[in-house]
């Protein structure tokens, strides 16, 4: 009897496991409601190193396991736009990127890929930002975004000016999308944080610039909400953004914002630089499009000081 039960159990378990493996996506969907809702809408940390701040923030959101299922394909999208060294704060802090990948892999992610459609020459930005090394050290996979062939056309149904875009195929294949922008001053969009960082997953940025930049940023935000947003505000470019001219443009703020709501994260980021979220047009439009909440007073915020 024992043996029969054992065999039955094994076969049944095998079929279930097979189903779960085959229909991983659906299985996750079904599993999702079972999770307890996040206690906090947004976590803000200050006073530590980028990796230590992320450890605290993600712990207070219940750990990365809540966002990264076992066996999932993860895309981490930092800002790697510029050929500048980390102290110039033009790109996301490599230490933060590294820590996020480590968390994902520890939680059982199958693969963690990192890319950006850079502005400056991509091999120089990948190297000089320190991010390529950080990704390799953490066991992630750093991928080029430099060829139009990597981008597939998708439609943006809710878009007003941007109704279609060519998006990097890695993002299209990803189960989990972690958006890791750096908070910066920006000559044209005033600030660049979460939503603006998504410009680096599309091919034709010129179209955005030519067709009402702020509207296009908000339009594309409606295409796919990142699973998680981690705003690097460790070093912050206060002026001459987004490229900066020298280290004199940079403030050491030692802060970080983590949220599943990128509109909220953008609003908090704006506040960190003393700018009202409502003054940034794409935040305003995204709020109106109900892509997230920018009224920080109504959010459950966990404020951590290290």
């Amino acid at each position: 009897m024992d043996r029969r039960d054992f065999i039955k159990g094994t076969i049944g378990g095998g079929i279930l496991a097979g189903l779960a493996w085959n229909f991983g996506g659906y299985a996750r969907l079904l599993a999702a409601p079972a999770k307890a809702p996040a206690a906090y809408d947004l976590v803000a940390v200050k006073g530590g190193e980028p990796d230590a701040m992320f450890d605290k923030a993600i712990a207070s959101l219940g750990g990365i396991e809540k966002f990264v299922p076992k066996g999932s394909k993860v895309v981490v999208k930092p800002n790697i736009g510029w050929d500048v060294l980390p102290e110039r704060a033009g790109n996301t802090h490599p230490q933060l990127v590294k820590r996020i990948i480590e968390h994902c892999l520890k939680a059982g992610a199958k693969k963690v890929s990192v890319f950006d459609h850079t502005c400056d020459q991509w091999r120089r930005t990948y190297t000089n930002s320190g991010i390529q090394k950080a990704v390799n050290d953490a066991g992630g996979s750093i991928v080029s975004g430099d060829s139009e062939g990597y981008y597939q056309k998708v439609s943006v149904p809710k878009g007003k000016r941007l109704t279609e875009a060519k998006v990097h195929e890695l993002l299209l294949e990803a189960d989990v999308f972690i958006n890791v922008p750096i908070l910066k001053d920006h000559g044209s969009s005033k600030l660049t944080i979460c939503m603006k960082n998504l410009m680096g997953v599309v091919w034709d940025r010129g179209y955005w610039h030519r067709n009402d930049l702020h509207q296009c940023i908000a339009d594309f935000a409606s295409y796919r909400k990142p699973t998680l947003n981690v705003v690097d505000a460790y070093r912050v470019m206060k002026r001459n953004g987004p490229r900066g001219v020298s280290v004199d443009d940079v403030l050491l703020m030692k802060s970080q914002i983590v949220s599943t709501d990128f509109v909220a994260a953008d609003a908090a980021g704006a506040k960190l630089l003393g700018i009202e979220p409502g003054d940034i047009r794409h935040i305003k439009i995204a709020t109106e499009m109900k892509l997230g909440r920018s009224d920080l007073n109504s959010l459950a915020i966990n404020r951590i000081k290290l």
Partner: protein
Amino acid sequence: MGLKRLRSLRIAVAIFFFALIAFLFLDYRDLGSRLFARELLYLQFAPSLLRFLHDAALGATGFVAVLLLTLFVGRVYCSTICPLGTLQDVVGFLRRKFGKGRGYQYSPPRNAIRYVILALTAAFLLAGSGLLLNLLDPFSTFGRIFSNLVRPVVLGVNNLAAIVLEWMGIHVLYRIPWPMIAPLSVGVAIGMLVLVVLMSVKNGRLYCNTVCPVGALLGLVARLSVLRIAVDPDACTRCGRCERVCKAGCIDIRNGTVDFTRCVGCCNCFAACRDDALRFECSWRPSPRPSQPDEDRRSFIRNSMMWLIGIPAIAGQPTKIIQSKPTTIPIPATPPIPPPGAISIAHFTSKCTACHLCVSICPSNVLVPSLFEYGLSGMMQPRMNYHAGYCNYDCMACLKVCPSGAILPMSAEKKKLTQLGVAKFIKENCVVYTDNTDCGACSEHCPTKAVKMVPYPNPANKPLVIPEVTEDYCVGCGACEYACPTRPYRAIYVEGNPIHETAEMPVEEKLDHKIDYREDFPF
């Protein structure tokens, strides 16, 4: 005996130079070839000569070494150091392997053609035009063949392999965007490749001994060589083995003579001779040669040249118009912009041999072969094309490889202040003006903030910002022009400085760095 081993030595040296120079042109992943580019190309005759003519620097005496070498032992340069020579040997190898078994044969010299070409090349140079030298210099021809023909094939193979590997989830390779196609340069490269291959299939080093001005010049020097290859009439059995392996066609076994002005020092004859009848002879006696121009050959070459120059040359890329309102104000004509380190158009065009090494290694694809922007004489010499890319502020790649000194090396600090041109803003083409929406792509990309966004009062009363150029800070890198999204005409462009100038360093006061981390969050 020792002389028989010379052939193997020659082949080893030839492979060394050929492989490394080819690698230099094809090293699109920058696997380190650029670290030794200058040293590797030090001996390339024409670039080195041009460099010396202008700088008279010690670092530019590679061609003197070649002259001395030739004076000592003849044109071994052509068989070892010259990559185009080795390319012809590869053709010869394939011909032996797959073609008819027929060997080479003695051919009379075409002195009229080769010396006329040499004289014309020199006359052009003296008159200030490098046109003929650039067209005929074997190193630059080799460079153009590799840069314009072989490199795209290699990129294609890379991209195919990358796609297959990516499909399997492996990202060790990455796809490389195609460089801008330069039809004139591609046409010239194809023409020269066809010419060189045809001539080499016909009779070995016919090109080197008929068309190549470097070959002709070294041939003249070889007349005075200390050591020369000669046939020992007593030992020779007239078997003709040496003549059949002589790709220069310079051994006349019937008369027992070697035309050393055409001998490329390949040493095949030593290896082929079973009677040890060939040897180096110390002698200062020039070999008298009859000059009998061959009209057929002459017209063939003349026609080929005409055809080459007449290649239809339509450059540029198709412009995708992406907005409803096309811009209306055309960009004014501006001088062509040579890369940083070029000093000036005059300096650059007088020294550049259009080998396209800088084009091959430019990671931003901003350097493209020109058409006739520098004039007929400067055809194919590279220029900055800000529709193809922009000069990465901290990149020094091209400054480190130029063998002719057309692009002179400079420090990173100096490069970042070298002003290739200045940005000019055409407000009427700008999105902010035409559409009253924010853009700022130009300012975003500007590494010095010479292009800065300033408040723009507008009819719609929106809080807009519009570009403003501080020309003193501008380095002319072209990032703004590249990024500007308006079509068909951009709203900002770089007007080239015919003589590169020096930009000013932007000065700004320090930010207040005092931040209290115990302070509360502003939300």
